[in-house]
């Protein structure tokens, strides 16, 4: 079983200095998008200004799913090609995805309390988002508890892929479970005045997601190359 760990230090060191600028851009874009969304959208007839939380909650939910899709793709790619880079990228995406997932849940609760009068309801989307969060908390815990790098990569790739496969099944089963008991309230169709703000913020969150994953990945690569260097020193060999 070959395990291409030698390729780790080759983390595009030359291009790394451009990334802080991307981060600045991403956050500036977010602030701008939020401002535009809040200024252009009128107060909602039923919810008033409470509706504004949509501009952070909905993009956070979308980016969560994008992040976990990245986990699936790079987990499968790791199992196929066995390159440590893919493992580290999947892990970075899982960490950032879990953060956005938690953010989605908390923002949803903050909105749900005044809008529905409860912090939590066993609605299909809420429940499946929570289950998704738990699946990826399991994934991250597994990574935390396995010390051997190769074993960690192998196992977490399998767990990540199985978890991602399960997402649509969980969603479907939770939806059936709810709809068979009570009719789900459908969200009213969106007024065009809200669409621009939502789209802009979706892109802003996407940029931030890319920036976060990339930064996390960079840190993970540095950490791994330190570990490799330490191993080499401990073995008495030359540091490469």
């Amino acid at each position, binding site marked *: 079983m070959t395990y291409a760990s030698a390729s780790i230090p080759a983390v595009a060191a030359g291009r790394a200095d451009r990334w802080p600028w991307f981060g600045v851009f991403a956050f500036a874009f977010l602030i701008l998008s939020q401002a535009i969304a809040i200024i252009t959208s009128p107060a909602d007839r039923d919810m008033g200004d409470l509706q504004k939380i949509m501009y952070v909650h909905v993009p956070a939910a979308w980016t969560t799913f994008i992040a976990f899709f990245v986990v699936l793709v790079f987990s499968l790619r790791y199992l196929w090609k066995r390159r440590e880079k893919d493992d580290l990228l999947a892990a970075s995406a899982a960490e950032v995805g879990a953060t956005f997932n938690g953010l989605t849940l908390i923002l949803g609760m903050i909105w749900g309390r005044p809008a529905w009068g409860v912090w939590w309801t066993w609605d299909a989307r809420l429940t499946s988002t929570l289950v998704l969060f738990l699946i990826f*908390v399991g994934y991250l815990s597994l990574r935390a508890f396995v010390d051997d790098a190769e074993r960690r990569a192998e196992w977490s790739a399998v767990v990540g892929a199985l978890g991602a496969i399960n997402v649509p099944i969980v969603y479907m*089963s939770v939806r059936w479970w709810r709809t068979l008991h009570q009719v789900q309230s459908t969200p009213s169709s969106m007024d065009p005045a809200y669409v621009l703000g939502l789209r802009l913020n979706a892109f802003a969150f996407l940029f931030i997601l890319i920036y976060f994953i990339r930064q996390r990945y960079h840190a993970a690569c540095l950490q791994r190359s330190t570990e490799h260097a330490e191993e080499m020193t401990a073995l008495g060999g030359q540091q490469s």
Partner: protein
Amino acid sequence: MTWRRDWSRVRAIVWKDLVTERRSKAGFSSVTALGVTILVLFGFALGPDAQVLRDAAAGALWLAALFAGVLAFSRSYQVELESGALEQLLQYPGSRWTIYVGKLLSNLIFVGLMLVIVIVTAIILFQVRIPATWPSLVAILVLGVVGVVVLGTFYAGMASRIRAREVLLPLLLFPMLVPVLLAAMSASKALLTGDLMHEASAWTRLLIAYDMIFLVATLLAFEHVIEA
């Protein structure tokens, strides 16, 4: 005739596991006792009202099966690890999936037998009225147990070999089993109350799909898990 040789490997592993279990006996009886204990605790939590108990019976049964099952799954690898038997098992020639299928079948038998006792207890304790459609109830039970055992056996292969395995196995396993639990609990509950909305067949199809998807996926992935 490779499949015949593979099959004899599977049988050998099942036989080995069952003999180990039969000789020690402590494993089976303690896991079953735990399942029954959990049912009793659910009875206390829900109160003595017969209708409440009847409504919650399916859920309590499945949760008891799950908690007791987790112990069974981690035991099935732990006995291998204690005396370094797993390394030897891996050194035998032949496909790795036969080890997984062998473990899977022996766990199915183990958990199935445990469930028979737990179910009888649940029927008595929760005053369940057995409906005329009991064969479909049995089918749902079997499908549900297959789902639980497939993923349980698979995840235990990893979790039993790391620190903090007691926490990690349920943490990995339970969220993954949400569809099985919802389907099995809802379908059993529907059948116990007469299935007025004909929802049991939809849940049964979901269970079949889930079992097939994860059986194939875990068979493909087991080699990565056991060799790492």
